C-alpha cells in the first residue's frame, strides 16, 4: 500500500495505490493523523489504484472523519473502483461519506 500526498493551495490530494487491509492501514492512518492536514479545506482521496479495502481500511477513514468535520475539512473520495465502492455500500458508508465519480466532481464538491 502506497500513499502519495499532493498538496495544492487549499486542497490535499491523497493517491492510494494497492490493497488497504489490517496490515497496511497504519500507513494511511499515519498520513491522516498528521496535524497539518487540518490546515486544508479539502482532502481528496484518489482511489483509482486502490484495488482492495477491508474493515481496517474503512475504520481508518471513520476514525478521522469527525476530526475533519470539526475542523471544516471536507473529505471526498473519487475514482473508486466498483468492487471497492461495493464494500462501502454493503455497510451503508456511501450514505455517510462523500464519494463522487471523477476528479472534476471531487474538486467541485
Amino acid at each position, binding site marked *: 500500500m502506497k500513499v502519495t500526498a499532493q498538496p495544492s493551495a487549499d486542497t490535499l490530494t491523497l493517491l492510494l495505490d494497492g490493497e488497504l*487491509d*489490517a*496490515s497496511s492501514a497504519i500507513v494511511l492512518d499515519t498520513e491522516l493523523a498528521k496535524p497539518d492536514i487540518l490546515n486544508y479545506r479539502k482532502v481528496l482521496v484518489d482511489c483509482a489504484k486502490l484495488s482492495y479495502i477491508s474493515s481496517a481500511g474503512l*475504520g481508518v477513514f471513520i476514525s478521522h472523519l*469527525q476530526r475533519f468535520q470539526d475542523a471544516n475539512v471536507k473529505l471526498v473520495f473519487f475514482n473508486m473502483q*466498483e468492487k471497492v465502492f461495493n464494500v462501502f455500500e454493503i455497510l451503508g*458508508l456511501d450514505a455517510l461519506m462523500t464519494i463522487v465519480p471523477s476528479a472534476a466532481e471531487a474538486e467541485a464538491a
Partner: protein
Amino acid sequence: MKSTLRIACSRAHLQQVRDFVRNYLNSRSLPEITVNQVVLAVDEVVANFIIHANNEDETQFLDLELAFEKQELNVEIADHGDTIFLPGAHQSPDLRAYIREGRKGGMGMALVNRLMDRVEFFTRGNHTVCHLSKHLA
C-alpha cells in the same frame, strides 16, 4: 477440488490469504465483485483470528481450506491456537456513533455476515473453527 493453505499468525500474511482465495475463485469465471466479497469475508475472519484470538503470535498458525460442492463454496478456517474465539451475535454497527466516537474497529464481522450466506464458529477440541459458505452461480 479442494485447496489448502497454512499461515503463521501474522497480519503480514493477509495478502497471501487474499491471493490464495482469488486464485482459487478465478478459475470459475465469477464477477469481480463476487470474488472480492468472498476474499473480503475470508480476510476479515483470518485477521480476527490473527489479531484477537492469537495476539499476532507467529508461533501459532491457521489452516484454510476452500472447496466447491456443486455451486456452493465452503471455506473452513481452523485456528490452532488455544484461545477459544467465538464472536457474539451479529449486530449492525451504528456507523454514525462510530464516526462520532472515532472508532476504528467493530465492523469486520458485520461485513462477513452480510457477505456470506452462512457463518458459523464452533470448537473442535481446544481450538476454534470458522465455517463460511456462499452459493455462487
